[in-house]
């Protein structure tokens, strides 16, 4: 069974416009017939510039939004089915962009317990899950701290632990590093990768940072509500000009490789990391 399967997923909303003739209604399509499939255990990256519809897509996975047309199944559960909402939210946890606006309690461990408490799990089991989740994000030291005293990266790791305590199969992260400093960003990315590799949790990472997108197994590029590109990171990022057309950057080294190729230097177009670039350049010297 596919973890996430979307068929013709469309989301429209009515936007009120203030004009000289009063308010006018305008129908906006945030998602236009999106088709995609995500396997269990995959690390999928959804790329897109601001306003491309990637956050709208994320909220559909968590059944926070209901599709206008088309269907979305999470582990076989249709998100339109109202009775399954809580099961869907437990299966696909969600981490938001702003670390401050998703922590509920005044103590770290109480916050992590929030999800399981809502699910009506027995107190002893909640305790066990909270300790486990804290250990997974390596924040045991801060169990009894107040979230307001933590750094952005730490808060985001607590938010991830809060989702983990609900034992999800899949975690959707909606630009989790956008408001963090480089240190926090690194902490969060390492945590996400560990969850994927060690715990086998399906990760759907929504981002516009290219260096993060490179780490995924597969990349979807969304532009104006449509899936315009999909494939492995190497396949996607070698198409520098096309990405730029969608308002996206490519990783810096990939861009350098692109320019070098335009100057007639023969190196592969799908270089994503500095190490690969060093390798390719050394190779080049050997052959000439």
């Amino acid at each position, binding site marked *: 069974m596919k973890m996430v399967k979307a068929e013709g997923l469309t989301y429209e909303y009515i936007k009120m416009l203030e004009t000289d003739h009063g308010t006018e209604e305008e129908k906006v399509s945030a998602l236009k017939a999106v088709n995609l499939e995500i396997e269990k255990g995959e690390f999928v990256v959804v790329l897109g510039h601001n306003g491309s519809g990637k956050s709208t897509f994320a*909220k559909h996975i*968590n059944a*926070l939004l209901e599709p206008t047309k088309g269907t979305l199944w999470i582990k076989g559960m249709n998100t339109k089915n109202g009775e399954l909402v*809580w099961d869907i*939210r*437990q299966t696909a*946890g*969600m981490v*938001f962009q*702003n670390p*401050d*606006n*998703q*922590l*509920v*309690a*005044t*103590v770290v*461990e*109480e916050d992590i*317990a*929030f*999800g*399981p*408490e*809502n*699910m*009506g*799990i*027995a*107190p002893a089991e*909640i*305790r066990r899950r*909270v300790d486990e989740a804290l250990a997974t994000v390596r924040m045991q030291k801060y169990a009894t701290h*107040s*979230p*307001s005293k933590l750094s952005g990266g730490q808060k985001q790791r607590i938010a991830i632990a*809060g*989702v983990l305590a*609900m034992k999800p199969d899949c975690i959707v992260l909606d630009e989790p590093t956008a408001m963090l400093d480089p240190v926090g960003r690194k902490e969060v990315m390492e945590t996400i990768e560990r969850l994927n590799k060690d715990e086998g949790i399906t990760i759907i990472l929504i981002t516009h940072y290219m260096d993060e997108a490179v780490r995924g197994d597969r990349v979807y590029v969304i532009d104006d509500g449509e899936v315009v590109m999909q494939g492995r990171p190497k396949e996607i990022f070698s198409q520098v000009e096309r990405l730029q057309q969608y308002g996206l950057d490519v990783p810096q080294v990939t861009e350098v490789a692109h320019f070098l190729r335009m100057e007639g230097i023969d190196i592969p177009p799908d270089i994503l990391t500095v190490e690969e670039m060093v390798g390719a350049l050394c190779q080049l010297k050997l052959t000439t």
Partner: protein
Amino acid sequence: MIRDITIGQFYPVDSPIHRLDARVKLTMTFIYIITLFMINSFIGYFFVIGTLLAVIKVSKVPIKFMLKGIKSIMLIIIFTAFINLFMTRGEQILWQWGFLSLTLEGIFLALKMCIRLVLLIIGSSVLTLTTTPIQLTDAIEYMLRPFKKIGVPAHEIAMMMTIALRFIPTLLDETDKIMKAQQARGADFDTGNLMQKAKSLIPILVPLFISAFRRAEELAMAMEARCYHGDENRTRMNRMTMQRRDYHALVMGLVYIVAIFGLRYVSYLLPFII
């Protein structure tokens, strides 16, 4: 500067009072406040002061923390004293000027009212200094539960208190940031008369409110994403359990109530000791 404000005045030490169940402490504080208004003699007040001092001693919280609360209501105390001193009518008039008269009864009444207010503040400080805000909200939720039938939203009240406590530091930080941003653009918060000062707050309050609403919306969505749907089928990780010490404390509370009634009776029999 604004970040240094501590929320809740919890004083973290380990003492028998700290370890008590918050529900017991809340009940006792409630009883204590009621008895303060039942006492009508100075002997009664001596007894209460003695008990309070003993409790403070056991709680290991320095007494100066207890007295901090009084400072903020000093004005109310002075005002109460003034009204009672000069407005009480009595037979033994000591001094009179216009409608103001100083009577023996007035002096006693003013003294009693002041003692009452001071004891009220110190007594409730004992509760807030020895109980964490979470314990307090949990206790309030528990105590309000019986009133759910008549439509008191016990869980919602407790949830609101928790969220408020959680966001006070966040919003204080934000206020600080907005103030600095406005100051950087030439805003002036410190000069001018009261009206001008109040007006200069508008550029702080408007962005603060907008951001608070935005935060509320995001938080609501995050809570929903974590399966929040009110207190239906909701469990708690930390359950409150009554220990032997809590029952001991309740028995002591009962003794205290009996003593207060006893003293009331004594002061009826022997009115001359006031």
